Structures are given as C-alpha cells and as structure tokens.
C-alpha cells in the first residue's frame, strides 16, 4: 500500500467517523439549537416593534408540545396549553424594555429509544423596566418529546436547589 492509498483510506475513515458522530449527536444538536432559539426569542432589545413581539411569542409557543405543562415559579401561573403560554410571554415581554437571557449548566439525557429527553439548565434573566432593573436565576428541568422528527418541550419544571420555606412568598421574575 503506497502513501496515496494510505491517505485515501485515512480520509475515508475520518469522513465515516465524522458522519457517524453527526448522526449519533443529531438529537442533541437539535435540542440545543431549540434552547438557543428560545433564549434568543425571549430576549428583547429596545428596538423591538410591537408586531415583532407578537411574532416572537408565537414562535416561542411553537417550541412546545400540545398539551404542555409549564411551571416557571412565582409570579407566573402554570400553563397547560400553548396559547395561554404565548399570551403570557407576550404580556411579560411587552412590560419589559429589555430582556437578556443567558442559559448555563445544560445537562441533557436522551432516552435509549431517542423519543424523549430530559434537560436540566439554569436560566438567568436580566430585565430592565421603566422603574428599574431585575435580575434572577432559576433552574429548570425540561422534558422533551420527539414529534414527527421535531423535538418539542412537553414539560417545564422548576428545580429548587435552595428550597424556599413554605409560606414565604417570592416576588422574583
């Protein structure tokens, strides 16, 4: 076997490995892309127009499955359908002047049959309002389902590393 043949073999091997890696991590990449998209959609710049806010709220709700179960913690109510979630997101975003969302500490577990997944993450939000600014960080567990090849969020649970005593209200974001 000469050098040219060896090089060819190496290239074919590398391409096969690359394709296999891409194939086996496709679900992970799609879920991460959706999370990044959600982060960008929830974030808001000062230049955003009202119609843009409506479109974004609709796009945000499209990342969720039907039915859905979303618990974001105080002061938000629980959401059981995409329409009420979209309405609340639109309302919340319209109050804020700017929103900057950062996602950290992602941990993803995909089920062996590649039809469901669980992701733990910490979401940090910095919000400017007309009367000042707010900053909050919360942990969530996202449950995902694969629907016609698309990964959608079916459940959002609030994880509390620091468990607030019962009866103690929170007025965070």
């Amino acid at each position: 076997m000469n050098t040219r043949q060896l090089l060819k073999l190496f290239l074919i091997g590398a391409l096969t490995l690359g394709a296999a890696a891409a194939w086996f991590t496709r679900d992970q990449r799609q879920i991460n892309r959706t999370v990044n998209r959600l982060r960008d959609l929830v974030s808001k710049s000062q230049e955003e127009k009202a119609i843009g806010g409506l479109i974004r709220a609709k796009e945000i709700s499209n990342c969720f499955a039907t039915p859905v179960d979303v618990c974001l913690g105080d002061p938000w109510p629980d959401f059981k359908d995409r329409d009420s979630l979209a309405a609340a997101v639109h309302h919340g975003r319209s109050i804020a002047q700017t929103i900057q969302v950062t996602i950290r500490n992602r941990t993803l577990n995909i089920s062996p049959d590649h039809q469901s997944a669980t992701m733990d993450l910490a979401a940090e939000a910095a919000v400017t309002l007309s009367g000042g600014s707010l900053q909050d960080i919360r942990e969530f567990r996202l449950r995902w389902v694969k629907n016609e090849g698309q990964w959608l969020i079916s459940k959002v649970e609030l994880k509390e590393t620091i468990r607030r005593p019962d009866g103690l209200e929170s007025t965070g974001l």
Partner: protein
Amino acid sequence: MTPKPSWLRRIVIGENPRRTLRAALGIGLLALVVFRFLLLPVRVQGASMEPTCRNGSLHFACMIAYMMKDPKRGDIVVISMSGRRTMYMKRVLGLPGERISFEAGRLRINGQPAAEDYLAGCGSWTMPELLLQSDEYFVAGDNRAVEIDRHTLGSVHRKNILGRILF
C-alpha cells in the same frame, strides 16, 4: 560552534526550549488541576452577599473542604445548580435537625436568638420556623437590606454544597 540565542528568545523561551516547554506544560497542568478541582475561582454576580462579598468581586472556593467534614454555621459556601458554571454563594445559618426562623430581622436557632456579627444591618426579615431534615442546611445571603421575598434563601441538600469560600 552554534550561535548564542538572542536576548529576546532567551527571555521568552529560555536557553533550553525543551525544558521550557516541559515547565510550561507542567505549570499548565498544575493550574488546571488546582483551579478546576481544588481552588475554584468564583466571580460574584448580584448583591445577595454584600457587604461580605461585593458584586463583581473574585473569590476562591476550596472544593475539598467538605470531603472529610461537614459545613459549619457561618461558612460561606458554593452551592451547585445543574452544573458548576453557575452556582449560588450563600452563608450557612442552620445545620441539620435545627429549627430556623427570623423575627424582626433576628435569626433564631431552636428558638434562641443567634449572633450574626458579619452583618451590616439586621433588616426586618420575618420567617416562620422551619425544621431542617437530617441532610439539610439553611442558607441565606448577608444582605438583609434586600426584602425577604426578593432574596434567595432556604434549605439545601448536603450534596449540593460543593465547597467553602476561602478568600
């Protein structure tokens, strides 16, 4: 006879490049081990721990402090969230099995007032009594000027307490 390396080269990579490379790799590896597993740099974000830890200040957490022993009251600890990139920094106020409450800003442990000499002011927090389970600690920030409903405080499991702030 080989020419002597220039002064600039001697300063940057030394007279023996191979030895310099080995030393650089050794230092890099040591720094990686120290700052990832032993002494974790922590940048404070937020005013929850003021005045002890100012917003934006840099601190170091000893990640092996609780390998052999348990957290003590008064320790400033780092608490893991889903991972280690973002963590809580809080002070341990209550130990497992204790009853913790706040009355008009004063911390009470098992019904008795507790001294907190690290505080700038005691504020006006009021919280009903909470009984900690056998693996739970009560943590809160030092900034009592923040209203209790806007402050993250409560019980945390032992396994989430990763390390102690050294300085």
